[in-house]
């Protein structure tokens, strides 16, 4: 299988030969940082145009079609607009927290990129507790949102932030439990190990019923965690105008906006890694020829294909369903998703102990 490790190893060796190890380390960090920021920008642009096209086609419209071929540069034009707009800080807000909040949302999204395996041997930080790291860091998002809501000195923002707090704290549980189902099967928290364990089949196929159930629960829970419709109560447009980012404008708003999309990307990447095999090509048992052909498709393509499929699912939800009410949202979590995922985890554990999975 073709791999990116040769390139990264070559860079690593060259840096170490040319400079002393400390400088080599710093240069590597800079390269990674630039890559992350670049990926951020590209992902933001791609996801926004994708969302608008999906929405348009579902709503029997054409969608953006003016800027560039078939409107593909629309999100770039939007970014330029947001960049040149005035970033207002209204009177009466807590200026420090108000300006800090979008940065926190952004930094959290950046941090989450670290342990994700984008392709074969292409991980920024091959952490042995990668999944745990992601679940832990992603819950910091709520602090950014609460900070924005509180500092805005606006009742709509405050209500949006409070809703978001309740929502994220609750849905972390079932997201965590559904991730645990896969951890039980693999016995490892390392993302690379999890991907490697799916060489002979993805967990959604290998894990029988519990894997499918936990996949469905995972998708629902992460939709809620990223504040996407039908769980977009934090920014419920028809109730709270724009929720926690009502008072934000210009680039500060754009950072929230971007962070939301990056968060969607990351949770979908985690979902693709855990359930759909990450960068691992589609393999079927003993069909050697078929597996061999599949190996020719680059691993990065597999990863991004699966991730974008999950992102499409989440967008599809958004443009189909009405929004839930806050009490129904919590009911759904505590009365349905949590019991089901607990029972499901039990079942998965039994399967894993008995070794009934493939």
């Amino acid at each position, binding site marked *: 299988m073709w791999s990116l490790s040769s390139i990264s190893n070559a860079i690593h060796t060259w840096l170490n030969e040319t400079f002393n190890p400390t400088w080599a380390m710093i240069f590597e960090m800079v390269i990674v940082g630039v890559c992350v920021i670049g990926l951020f920008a590209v992902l933001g642009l791609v996801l926004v145009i994708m969302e608008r096209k*999906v929405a348009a*086609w*579902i*709503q*029997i*419209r*054409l969608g953006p*079609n003016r800027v560039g071929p078939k409107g593909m540069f629309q999100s770039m034009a939007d970014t330029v607009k947001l960049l040149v707009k005035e970033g207002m800080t209204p009177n009466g807000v807590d200026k420090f927290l108000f300006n800090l909040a979008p940065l926190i949302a952004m930094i959290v999204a950046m941090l989450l990129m670290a342990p994700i395996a984008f392709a074969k041997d292409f991980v920024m930080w091959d952490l042995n507790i990668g999944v745990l790291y992601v679940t832990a860091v992603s819950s910091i998002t709520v602090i950014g949102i609460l900070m924005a809501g509180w500092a805005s000195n606006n009742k709509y923002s405050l209500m949006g932030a409070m809703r978001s707090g309740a929502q994220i704290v609750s849905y972390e549980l079932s997201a965590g439990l559904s991730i645990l189902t896969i951890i039980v099967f693999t016995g490892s928290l390392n993302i690379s190990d999890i991907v490697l364990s799916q060489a002979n089949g993805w967990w959604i196929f290998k894990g029988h019923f519990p894997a499918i159930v936990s996949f469905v629960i995972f998708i629902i829970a992460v939709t809620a965690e990223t504040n996407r419709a039908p769980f977009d109560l934090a920014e419920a447009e028809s109730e709270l105008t724009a929720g926690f980012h009502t008072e934000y404008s210009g680039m500060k708003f754009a950072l929230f906006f971007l962070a939301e999309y990056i968060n969607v990307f990351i949770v979908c990447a985690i979902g693709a890694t855990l359930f759909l095999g990450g960068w691992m090509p589609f393999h079927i048992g003993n069909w050697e020829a078929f597996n061999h052909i599949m190996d020719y498709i680059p691993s990065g393509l597999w990863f991004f294909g699966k991730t974008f499929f999950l992102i499409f699912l989440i967008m*599809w*939800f958004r*443009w*189909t*369903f009405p929004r839930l009410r806050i009490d129904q949202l919590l009911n759904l979590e505590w009365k*349905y998703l949590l019991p*089901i995922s607990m029972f499901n985890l039990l079942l998965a554990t039994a399967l894993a102990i008995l070794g009934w999975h493939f």
Partner: protein
Amino acid sequence: MFIVNYIKEVLSAVRSLLVGLRRTGYYFTHHKEIITEQYPDNRDTLKMADRFKGEVVMPHDEKNEHRCTGCTACELACPNGTIKVITKFDISPEGKKKKAIDKLVYHLELCTMCNLCVVACPSDAIVMAQTFEHSVFDRASLTKILNNPDSKIMEGVE
């Protein structure tokens, strides 16, 4: 029994959501259902209904003649004071004085396209045109004079 109901509830809920997803998925994949009209681009092919009330105009024939007698029926019928008829007295070749319009001033900015003036006109001098792109940069240009300069009343219209 509780468990059975619980599971039934969950399944029927999931089913109702899938039905909705199937419907939106259908539209996502069937692009021929798209109903967007790309307005400024289709200006050449765009045809308004022949009764569309766009603005009041006064048709003139090739001899630059209109049918307006200056009876002010339209001015009286208009609810908003959109139309103002300014009359003059023409001297006919026989030396008789004859009432005719000097100007028929039409304020497009006041008009609600209610069609009452067209209905009220006894000699069918004014009609509704099918134009619809009325935006201008200067409000003064919305005030129009409907009769052409040097136009005359048609023969036989009383």
